[in-house]
Structures are given as structure tokens and as C-alpha cells.
């Protein structure tokens, strides 16, 4: 046993004082009695007449000495060095995501996790070190390796959860690099397990200890929000919201839709819809409203549940503007017809492109290698551009085996019964800027991606050399492509960021500073060194942000909109990679210091002594 505060042994000097008190005589009440004969058995402990007396056996004295000894011992803060272990490094990862705000633990999951982590701080031995990471949308090193408990406690106390989803993998990678060379290290993850994308992380032999928080999942959450032109009525806007119930029982609530114009006017309630969602089901909802001006639509669940962060989501809706499209072709009536069929498209047709497509929102290259490559977004059919891919090869009769139906380009567009005569494919596989959305066994056939700030859709084959234009998926694909390649829609997509993700804004001319009005009404000012792109990263709180930078004025929304976060069911195990599973630990770290125990025993002794004293006098 060692002592953290051996100086407190000085308090032992008070022990003789207690003994002196017992050497002094007790003052007694004099009473005349007929005879002391009957009192022989009740002789007191002391019978001397001097002010000091011989010390006699007295249980009260022993109890008080014991009490004092315990108190002094507690003050010296003894502890057991259990084993001669090498200095340990503990990496504490606190899950600071939105789901940790759930109130099924009292007062919240994050508070519980914080309290647990504080216990581990208490149990830190003097040579041990601890690192505190806060894993939200970004991993924040709250405290680098230290043995100083006060600093660790301060850091833990100041940590707060954000409205953002959890990105645990970067935190784990950071922890991995921190513990790599340490022989004795542990990673303590305090989380509810509502974490996505863990399957992409191989745990290897990482000493991860998972501390589970959370008890139940009583939550209705909005997991998706989108606004589009109403396909049935062009004058209206359709707002799609997806409400998920992660509880096992049916929950009822009201779903409210608000609209707020960008001019700074107040929020209007447009519609209230009663909603009953069966357990573990989703309820997609569509609102159709007419919109007269640009503004922000907000959907809100009024019911009270465990997690408030996913009960509200907002989206910026800008009125649609006509899309100017240039089709560069040597004649493709099917393609032209498909483009003209898309609403709101002003189509121009040309044989060649000489001015980089100025004045057009995007350019469609149909098998024509232009004189001047367009600077805007491009939909290219069977075009070879060495900037896009180093080399291409030709494939005869490729068989379509897979397509990414989740990509916005292929929404409602299937490739069943589509045959292709011949197609170009990138010779060295998918280029880094693109993802393949249509695949033959040999190679990708359609690529989509962003090269610089240019959106590209590259189709390797001529539609006329396939039966694709005869399938219904062709006009749908064209319509999707118009939507995806329209810079305005790309811009409006930019106006919706996930909480915690940075908001980026391309600027026509550099600005020095920008002012951002936060959802809680406060304003912050950002200073730049004349950058062309503005990045605002402080989006941890969800809601509507107003940004003003020079002449630009932008409203954007930060939302949680994460099914993984809304699913606040506490997990008993985390799955890493394909095979690894980490079960929640049941180990509760208790204080290894003994002073609390000693103080508690001291209190018991004190109470016993009190009882004993009163028992003999009253």
C-alpha cells in the first residue's frame, strides 16, 4: 500500500490530544444516597481525585482512537499498487454524435459516458497516461497524453455532443496510431454503438474496450428530406420526408411542415399531418405545396421522444429556372427528343463546340470530339478525352451485370433487357474522379463523378448502337442527368450539408471576410486570405445558417438526416470488418483509492461511538 498524501500523517499528532482528554477527569454530579452498598456493581471507570488520572480501559477511547486513525489514514490517501505494471496508455474515445444526446439515460447518454470516463480517470495510476478523443463528425483530440487527472477531468467536463453523425473510423485510426508502439495500451470507446461504416474498418489486434451506454430506443426521427418539383404538377413543389420509428412499439406524433422565405420573414406553418408509425418501420411522407419564392422548408416531429436532434430538419428550396442545354451531335433524334421531353429545358443543337459552351448550363457531347472542350458540366456519349481517362479500349457486346440504382442518375432507371453492340471502356479501370454506375464484367460502361468543379457523366457506348433508347429507362436517365448536371441543382444540393460537415461555397471573386448567422441567432465572422472558395466548418448544430460574404448571400441548412444516428438502439456489440466483433464490456472501473472506504468506516465508527456514549449515560 502506498500513500498519495503522506504529509497527512502529521494529523496523527491529534491522537495524543484525545488521550489527554481521557486523562482529564470527568466532572460528576454529587449525590447523597442512603448507602452505596447497592451501587458496588456500577463503579465508574475512574475513581481518582487528582485532575489527571491513570489511563483506564475505556471503549470510548479506543473507538475515538480508531476513528481518528481511520480519518488520518483516509487523509493520506492510500492506494494499492495492484501489480507492477508498465505505465499504461489509455485512449478514451467519447462518442460525441447526435445519438449520444438521447435522454434514455439520465440526464443523457453523453453525460453517462462522461461519468464513466471520469471514473476511469480516477482509477488512473500516477504513471499512467490518458488521451481523450471526441469522435463526432470529425475527431477532435481534446487532450494529448497526460497523467494529470485535473486536466483530464477538465477536458471531459467541457466536452459536449454535437448534432452530427459519428465517424468513428478516423477516431479509431488515430487511436491506432497512438497506441501502435505502446506495449501496454487500451482504447476505451464510450458509445451507444449507433455508428455506421464500421464494416470498412479492420480492427486487427487493437485493444478496444467498448463501454456501452443507452438503455432503450424510443425514437422517431427524420432520416431523409428532399425537395423537388412536383412531377405531377410543375407549379408545385414536392417535399419528401422519411420518418423512421426505431422503437419496437407503434408511436404516434404530428409531422409539421413550415416555410420561411429567404427575405427574413417569419416561419409559417403550412401543414400538420398526424402520423402513426409501426415499430421499426419507416413512413415516407410527401407534402405538395406551391412555392412563390425561394425559402426554407422545415419539417418537424412534435412528439416527445428520447432523441430530439432528429426531430427537425430543414432544406433550402430555390425556385426552378430553365436549364440551357447544348447538344453537340451529328444527328441523334432519340437523344434530342429525350432531352426536349424534360421539363424546363432550353435545348440548342450544334455540330461542334468552339466557345467552351459559354452561356449553357451543361453540354451534351454525342460522339463528337469538340474543338474546344466545354468548361461546364458534360454528358458525354462515346467521347475520348485524355484528361478524363488515360486510354480507352473497345469491348464488343458487353453484358450488363450491375448498375448502381442508388445513384441519382439511375433513379428509377433499370437496365434489364438492354443490349449493347459495342462500347468503349477505360483501359485502366475506373479513374479516380469517377464511380462506375453501369458495369459489364470486363469494365465500367457509364462513369459519373466530379473532376475539379466539373460534373461529368461519361457513357462509353452510342445509344444508337444499343436497344437502350427503346427502353423506358433511357428518357428517365436523361431526365436524371439533366437534373444532376444542372449547376443550379448541384448548388441547391450543396445547400444541404450534414451537421458537422463543412459547407463549401465557390466564390466568383475572393473575399476577405464573411459573416455567418448561426441557428441560435448568434453571428460569427470568418476571415480569409482572399480565397476562391469559402469553407465554413462550424456546423455542429443543425439548423438554418445565413452566410454573407461580400455580395454573396447564401442560406444553407445543416441536418442530421442519418438513419444510423436515429437508430438509437443501444448495441451490445460492435462489428468490425467481416469477422471481428467487440462486445460491450461489463467492467466498471471503481476507484482504487481507499480513502472513501476508510472515511465510510470512520463514519460508521463515529455513529457507533455516539450510540455507545448515549447508551451509557442516558
Amino acid at each position, binding site marked *: 500500500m502506498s500513500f498519495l498524501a503522506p504529509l497527512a500523517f502529521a494529523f496523527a499528532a491529534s491522537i495524543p490530544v484525545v488521550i489527554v482528554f481521557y486523562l482529564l477527569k470527568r466532572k460528576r454530579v454529587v449525590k447523597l444516597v442512603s448507602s452505596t452498598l447497592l451501587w458496588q456493581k456500577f463503579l465508574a471507570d475512574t475513581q481518582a481525585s487528582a485532575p489527571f488520572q491513570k489511563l483506564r480501559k475505556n471503549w470510548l477511547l479506543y473507538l475515538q482512537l480508531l476513528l481518528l486513525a481511520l480519518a488520518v489514514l483516509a487523509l493520506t490517501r492510500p492506494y494499492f499498487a495492484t501489480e507492477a505494471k508498465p505505465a499504461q496508455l489509455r485512449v478514451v474515445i467519447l462518442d460525441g454524435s447526435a445519438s449520444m444526446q438521447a435522454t434514455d439515460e439520465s440526464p443523457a447518454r453523453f453525460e453517462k459516458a462522461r461519468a464513466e470516463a471520469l471514473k476511469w480517470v480516477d482509477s488512473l495510476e500516477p504513471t499512467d497516461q490518458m488521451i481523450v478523443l471526441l469522435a463526432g463528425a470529425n475527431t477532435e483530440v481534446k487532450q494529448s497524453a497526460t497523467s494529470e487527472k485535473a486536466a483530464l477531468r477538465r477536458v471531459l467536463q467541457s466536452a459536449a455532443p454535437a448534432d452530427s453523425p459519428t465517424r468513428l473510423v478516423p477516431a479509431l485510426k488515430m487511436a491506432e496510431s497512438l497506441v501502435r508502439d505502446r506495449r501496454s495500451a487500451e482504447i476505451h470507446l464510450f458509445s451507444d454503438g449507433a455508428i455506421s461504416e464500421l464494416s470498412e474498418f479492420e480492427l486487427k489486434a487493437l485493444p478496444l474496450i467498448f463501454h456501452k451506454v443507452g438503455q432503450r430506443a424510443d425514437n422517431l426521427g427524420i432520416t431523409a428530406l428532399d425537395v423537388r418539383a412536383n412531377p405531377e404538377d410543375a407549379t408545385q413543389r414536392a417535399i419528401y420526408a422519411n420518418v423512421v420509428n426505431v422503437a419496437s412499439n407503434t408511436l404516434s406524433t404530428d409531422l409539421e411542415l413550415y416555410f420561411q422565405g429567404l427575405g427574413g420573414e417569419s416561419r409559417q406553418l403550412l401543414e400538420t399531418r398526424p402520423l402513426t408509425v409501426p415499430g421499426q418501420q419507416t413512413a415516407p411522407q410527401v407534402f405538395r405545396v406551391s412555392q412563390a419564392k425561394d425559402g426554407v422548408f422545415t419539417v418537424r416531429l412534435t412528439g416527445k421522444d428520447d432523441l430530439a436532434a432528429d426531430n427537425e430538419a430543414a432544406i433550402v428550396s430555390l425556385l426552378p429556372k430553365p436549364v440551357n442545354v447544348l447538344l453537340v451531335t451529328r444527328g441523334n433524334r432519340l437523344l434530342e427528343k429525350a432531352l426536349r421531353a424534360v421539363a424546363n429545358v432550353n435545348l440548342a443543337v450544334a455540330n461542334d463546340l468552339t466557345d467552351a459552351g459559354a452561356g449553357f448550363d451543361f453540354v451534351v457531347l454525342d460522339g463528337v470530339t469538340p474543338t474546344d472542350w466545354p468548361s461546364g458540366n458534360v454528358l458525354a456519349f462515346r467521347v475520348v478525352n485524355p484528361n478524363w481517362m488515360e486510354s480507352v479500349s473497345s469491348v464488343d457486346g458487353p453484358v450488363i451485370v450491375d448498375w448502381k440504382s442508388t445513384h441519382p442518375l439511375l433513379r428509377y432507371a433499370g437496365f434489364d433487357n438492354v443490349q449493347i453492340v459495342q462500347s468503349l471502356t477505360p483501359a485502366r479501370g475506373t479513374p479516380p474522379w469517377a464511380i462506375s454506375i453501369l458495369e459489364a464484367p470486363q469494365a465500367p460502361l457509364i462513369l459519373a463523378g466530379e473532376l475539379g468543379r466539373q460534373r461529368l457523366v461519361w457513357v462509353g457506348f452510342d445509344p444508337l448502337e444499343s436497344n437502350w433508347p427503346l427502353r423506358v429507362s433511357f428518357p428517365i436517365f436523361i431526365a436524371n442527368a439533366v437534373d444532376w448536371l444542372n449547376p443550379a441543382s448541384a448548388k441547391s444540393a450543396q445547400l444541404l450539408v450534414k451537421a458537422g460537415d463543412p459547407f463549401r461555397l465557390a466564390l466568383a471573386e475572393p473575399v476577405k471576410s464573411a459573416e455567418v448567422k448561426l441557428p441560435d441567432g448568434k453571428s460569427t465572422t470568418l476571415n480569409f486570405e482572399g480565397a476562391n472558395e469559402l469553407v465554413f466548418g462550424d456546423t455542429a448544430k443543425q439548423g438554418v445558417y445565413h452566410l454573407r460574404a461580400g455580395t454573396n448571400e447564401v442560406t444553407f441548412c445543416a441536418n442530421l438526416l442519418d438513419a444510423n444516428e436515429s437508430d438509437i438502439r443501444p448495441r451490445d456489440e460492435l462489428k468490425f470488418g467481416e469477422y471481428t466483433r467487440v462486445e460491450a464490456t461489463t467492467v466498471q472501473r471503481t476507484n482504487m483509492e481507499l480513502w472513501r472506504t476508510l472515511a465510510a468506516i470512520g463514519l460508521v465508527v463515529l455513529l457507533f461511538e455516539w450510540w455507545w456514549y448515549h447508551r*451509557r449515560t442516558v
Partner: protein
Amino acid sequence: MSKLLTPELLRYLEQFQLLAARRAKSSSKGERRSRARGQSVEFADHRSYVPGDDFRYLDWNLFGRLDRLFLKLYEEERELPVRIFLDASESMTFGEPRKFDFARQVAAAIGYVALCGFDRVSVIPFPNAEARIGGKGEISNIQHPTSNAQQSAIEGALRSVRGKKSSMQFFANLNALAGGGGADLNEALRRGALEARHTGLAIVLSDFLDPAGYEAGLTALVGRGFQVNCVQILAPEELAPSTFGDLRLVDSESGGLQEVTFGRYRMKAYQQTVQNFVQRLREYCTRRGMNFFMAPSNMDLQDLLLKQLRKAEVWG
């Protein structure tokens, strides 16, 4: 009438007569049967006539039948000496009501019964007036601020009382008795036993709280041939003390100091101590054929006199 006993109680007492288990050995005439032959109405025996006998006692009926002369013998009736040992020590002046007052009442009652039965009553208070002068105890009885000389005179008067006529004077003297001083129970009883010319009934009224014990004195009385009745009188305060805490107790007789720490929780232990003390005395008495009575000083006097003493056949 007497302050000690109510007239009503006196009327009751007049019906009683002290019962003596043994024949009276007194030389004075009285109303008790004795082994001595003498003049009375109680026939005892016949014996042959020897010349010189009083003719008046010849049994003429026998002479008529047997033609021989027989003399009728009668029992001589003698008195029963009753000695009342009254503890008048300092410790008896405690209690509410005072133990000494209660003892005097009992003494008066027994004395009255004896006087009514033509028995001789001796009240022996101890310590006596001389002993008090010699001892360190002073008379503490402020109700009767009588001098030691007067006390001696009273004690002398109580030495031997006879006849119902004397009862008023007897009560007055008892009433005038004062308590105080330290007593030696053993010594007082032994001396009383030795002094007595004739044995009879002995009543010991005391709290028996004597550090030297009581055994020697009682044994002396029994050994002398007395029929002994012990009445132990204790104050309610002694049976169940009401003062608690850290106490320094002063012995009223010896002046000795004793420090005790006494709490309510120890009451039971204390009462057990008292019970043991009483029980030991009771057993001691019973084993030696003495009657024993335990009387708290707040006890109903009639209960002791009319029930307990009667039941124990001290009188009937």
C-alpha cells in the same frame, strides 16, 4: 390518638394476638402458656400428694374413685417478651416516605398488638443516643429537635413497656424518636440478644444496608432462642433510582465516595442487584426459620400488617 397509626387500624390490631411458636420463658406472669406450673385455669397434669401441699388443689373426684390423694397441676401463664430492633441509622432517614417513619409505624403496630396481649414490649433503636455522640453521625431529624439527653430518656422509657394502658405513652415515645448516625446492625442485634433475660419474639426493622452484613447479628438472635421476624424496608428511590449520568455518590453513613456512570439502560442491572440482595437475605432468613418481609416504604401499611404478617402467622 397516635400520629403513627390511625384509630381504624388500631381497632383492627386489637383483634390480633401475637403467636408464639415456643412456650414463654419469661418469669413474669402474663397470658402466654409456659412450661412452668402455677396458677391458672389451664389444667396441666396430676401428681401424687406429698405432705405440705396445698389442700385446695387436691382432686377430690379422683380421691372418691381411687381413694388416693392427687394434686391437680395448672399451667403457669407467663408473658411473651417482644423485642423490636428499630434501625434508626442515617440511611433510614432517606426515601419518600421516609423509611424510618415506616419502620416506626410497623414498630408501633407490633408493639400495640403485644401490649394488648399483656406482653412486654422493648423497642431498641440503634444506634442509641450514646452511640451517636460517640460516632460521627449527628441527629439529622429536624422534625424532632430533641437533645441527646431527651433521646436517651425516651429510649430508656421504650426499654420495657407493658399493658394496654401504656400504649399512648408508647406511641408518643416512638414518635419522639429521632434517626441519624451510623449504625452497626450486627453489634446492635448481638447486644440485644445478650441483654435479654428471657427470649421471645424479636422483630428487626431495618434496611439491612450495612456494609458489615447482617448475618452475625441475626445468627446471634436465633442462637439465643428468639423467634425472629425481619422486615426489610427500602425506599422507592433505592428500588428504582431516578438520577442518571455521571454521578459521585456520597454514602450518608460512612461518608464514603463512589463514582458511577449510570444510564437508563443499566436500570435493569441495578434492579437485578437489588433483587439479588433481597433474595439473599430472604434465603438466609428462611433457612434459619426466621420470617422475612420486604416492604418498600411507600407500601400500604395495612397490606403488610393485616395480610402479610397474618399470613406468616406472626399474629392471628
